């Protein structure tokens, strides 16, 4: 069981090949920390705010970092083939990662079953017509029928999975973990603060903050509250480890700092923790506004200012990491 589904799946697949890494380490090596604001794409009726990169990217990056060969397949129009190839891989005793929608996922807790299509699971065995699933969100091994699995692999809506599946084909003998860590930190820092345009990283946060200030005038109250709520849902979605992955990244920086004996990284971990605490404050205040329990000094403006403040904290931290000699 793990916090983040793609980390969890990656970890499970790696473990099958004898590579054991902590979830924080996988998340960090995969440069999983992220922030994007895409007001022109809607998910469940609100603008997309995401704390993680596109599905599949962490897996791809970590495999590159560790020199692992993988195969990713999609079957946009052929569900039967998608299931047949899965069966073949299981027959060869290869665990397979795949992307599914959670709305029709039978064992998933009902309150979380919205139309959300970026969930990752590992299918590792089949008996009769029942598949065994290791779902990173669940504590136990789950099962799912052929029809249900086919159904969730072809969920519709935003980010359709289209039967996407992936598995490891070859594991490298010598892994240079230290070098991979250094590269991954630089990559994350670059995305979070030096990516062109304003849809990713600290500038995206300030863009969102500016928009939040406008919501109250631009939309009716119901819609404005829905938009605000959807940010927090993405931030605290099951699997972030809290604060939109900020605590998980802090854990990675700590582990990396100890491993590389680098005090700057350990200190960066502490700063990241403080930033995470501020994200939690953001969620707390947003919930109070939504529930109409806000104090006099909590409103759309103050919450937007808090987000702006967080954006500058993250900018400072990642600029430092970008310059750091590792």
């Amino acid at each position, binding site marked *: 069981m793990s916090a983040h589904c793609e980390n969890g799946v990656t970890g499970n697949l790696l473990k099958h090949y004898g590579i054991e890494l902590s979830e924080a380490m996988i998340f960090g090596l995969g440069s999983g920390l992220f922030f994007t604001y895409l007001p022109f794409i809607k998910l*469940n009726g609100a603008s997309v705010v995401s704390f993680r990169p596109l599905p599949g990217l962490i897996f791809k990056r970590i495999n590159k970092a560790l020199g692992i060969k993988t195969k990713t397949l999609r079957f946009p129009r052929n569900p039967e083939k998608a299931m047949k190839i899965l069966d073949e891989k299981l027959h060869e005793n290869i665990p397979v990662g795949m992307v599914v929608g959670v709305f029709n996922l039978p064992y998933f807790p009902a309150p979380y079953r919205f*139309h959300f299509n970026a969930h990752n699971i590992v299918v590792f065995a089949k008996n009769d017509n029942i598949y065994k699933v290791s779902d990173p969100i*669940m504590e*136990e091994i789950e099962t799912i029928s052929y029809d249900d699995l086919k159904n969730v692999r072809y969920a519709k809506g935003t980010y*359709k999975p289209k039967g996407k599946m992936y598995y490891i084909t070859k594991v490298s003998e010598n892994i240079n973990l230290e070098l991979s860590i250094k590269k991954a930190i630089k990559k994350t820092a670059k995305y979070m603060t030096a990516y062109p345009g304003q849809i990713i990283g600290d500038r995206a946060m300030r863009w969102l903050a500016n928009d939040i200030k406008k919501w109250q005038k631009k939309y009716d109250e119901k819609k404005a509250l829905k938009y605000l709520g959807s940010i927090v*849902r993405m931030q605290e979605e099951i699997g972030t480890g*809290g604060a939109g992955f900020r605590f998980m990244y802090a854990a990675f920086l700590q582990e990396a700092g100890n491993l590389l004996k680098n005090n700057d990284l350990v200190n960066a971990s502490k700063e990241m923790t403080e930033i995470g605490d501020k994200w939690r404050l953001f969620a707390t205040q947003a*919930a109070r506004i939504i529930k109409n329990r806000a104090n006099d000094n909590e409103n759309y403006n103050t919450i937007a200012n808090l987000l702006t403040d967080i954006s500058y904290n993250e900018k400072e931290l990642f600029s430092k990491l970008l310059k750091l000699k590792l």
Partner: protein
Amino acid sequence: MKVQEVPQDDANMLEGKTKEIQFALDKNGNYTEVKSVGWEPKNIILQEAWNEVNENITNAINLVENGEKSPIYFFMHKNIMDIKLLSQYTGFCVFTIKRHLKPNVFKNLSDKKLEKYLKTFNLNSINDLKLFDYKKYI
């Protein structure tokens, strides 16, 4: 966040099926993973999202009972869909679905067309769709 600050606010959002992992600092300042049953701000927001869904469902029941919309309208909201998503699941175009939402058009739909809705809404028989016994589903 410190280990002792990891919230345990249970609103049955996980239905006892699992717990969430939170990353927190132990007393020596080392990160560790702690299981949590929930956090109040998040419970509030998730509940709010369901309140909206339930409002839409109640509204849909009234419209169907008043003969303003066909039962498809109720099942669409029951499945948290809009016309666009329903169109993707059924393969009907948006314009066609809008017609199917009219009670007098719905009345004359062929079984073949209704089957596509059955599959999308996980219903067993055409009567589930036609006889609007919504109490079975809420």
